[in-house]
């Protein structure tokens, strides 16, 4: 059984290609310099459609998380940690926290992005806890 796969569209192709290349891309407005995620055709701050891709540092902190004890399907092995990550650049995204004891995760913990295979052709951003 396969994990739920994203279906990239014209606006997100570059983002998912970035994941495969090991880069977390967010959008930067060329008019007002605002940063945003998820990708859109317009800047939510000034409505400009001049947007470029900007690599995120991949660093952030846990805004919230949960340990899923009952998996959504057999493709996901419970327990797994789902988290909302607030990037140091500002935008927030959903992800997993991997390679840790689920009990060691806390709100506010510092994390760094890494990429995990979601299918034979697609990697997805996930995060690991920083060492103190």
């Amino acid at each position, binding site marked *: 059984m396969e994990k739920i796969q994203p279906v990239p569209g014209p606006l997100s192709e570059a983002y998912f290609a970035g994941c495969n290349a090991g880069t977390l891309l967010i959008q930067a407005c060329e008019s007002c310099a605002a940063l945003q995620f998820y990708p859109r055709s317009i800047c939510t701050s000034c409505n400009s459609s001049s947007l470029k891709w900007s690599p995120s540092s991949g660093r952030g902190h846990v805004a*919230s998380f949960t340990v899923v004890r*009952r998996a959504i399907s057999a493709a996901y092995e419970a327990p*797994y940690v789902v988290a909302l990550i607030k990037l140091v650049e500002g935008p927030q995204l959903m992800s*997993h926290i991997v390679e840790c004891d689920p009990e060691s995760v806390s*709100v506010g913990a510092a994390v760094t992005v890494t990429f995990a295979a979601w299918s034979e052709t697609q990697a997805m951003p996930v995060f690991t806890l920083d060492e103190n």
Partner: protein
Amino acid sequence: MASMRGKVAIVGAADTRVGTVPGVSATELCVDAILKALDDACISKHQVDGLITCNSMSQPMLYHAEAMAEYLQIFPRYCFAAGAGGGTTFSVLHHAASAIMTGMADTIVIAMADSLRSGLSREQAMMVQSSTGHPQFEQPYGLTVPAYYALVAQAHMAQYGTTAEHFAQVAVACRAHAARNPAAQMRTPITVEDVLASRPIADPLHLLDCSLVSDGGAAIVMTSAERARDFPHTPVYVLGVGEGHSHEHISQAHSLTTSAAVEAGERAYAMAGLGPADMAFAQLYDCFTPTVLVELEDLGFCQKGEGGAFITEAGIGPGGALPVNTHGGLLSHSHPGNPGSMFALTESVWQLRHTAGERQVPNAEAGLLHAQGGIMSSHTTLILGRDGY
């Protein structure tokens, strides 16, 4: 624009049987609810000129309200099906009140039903579970519906020191109310220990922190305040209503711990000219226990961050300072999906008619109802009251 306060009233209300109702489709539950509500209002189907429904998951239809009208052979001049998740019920009531005030219809039925327990195919059940969230940026991470709400709960715990015991007390209180309601699906009293010992689902939520999966439906009849006096039951007036819409996807929420229930509540209180202290009861959306705690705070029943203490010290069970979900809520009465809050509405009508039997809140003159759809996305607060309040 004239204020909506006191201009429209609920004159009929009825529930179908709820829980496990095998062999009755969502359509038939909806029709049953409509006919029972018309009976309660003592009018014929031919007096209905407005119909609002929500779509069914077990029998999805492209034109749901039209299909119900056709089934009944009624021919309304105002007719639509709405979709705002769990927030649909009170959001459409807001629209119906506006339609009555502007003359789009005189007598509107709001009816909702579904058959989530008996009527869903395995594929439909999977769809319900996996269709929540952003398809590209959230769903791939495999969140179950409780997992989305667990994110709200964990953030509240970290920010304010709220505990799993506080959330469990919500489930215990709803069950205590349901124990007094012969119609409720789950009536055996439970304890905080029972909740914490139930199967872990998504931390901090256990099985008993999660609402039921049910069959069932309900309907109400609404009309203008002038016409309401000609109906047999004590009219229940719309005193205030307000909405707040903050996001669709939880990853885009500007706050995980304060919701747009704040704006919805402020708008409803302002229209009603009333405040939290005037409410004899509150029916708060309880798909999972943490939503009740957040709504108690956001609707001003206590300070932000003090929801846990309010539940423990003031009490939300029978005889508590603020009885919450007097019918048992989605946690213990029933939860047939989007129609879920209809039962909070019919219960409030009976509370304000003073016909709620064993669970009647003494001298209930006004009460507050709140529902949200999405993941704390789409909020409507409704304040109902008796004549003269």
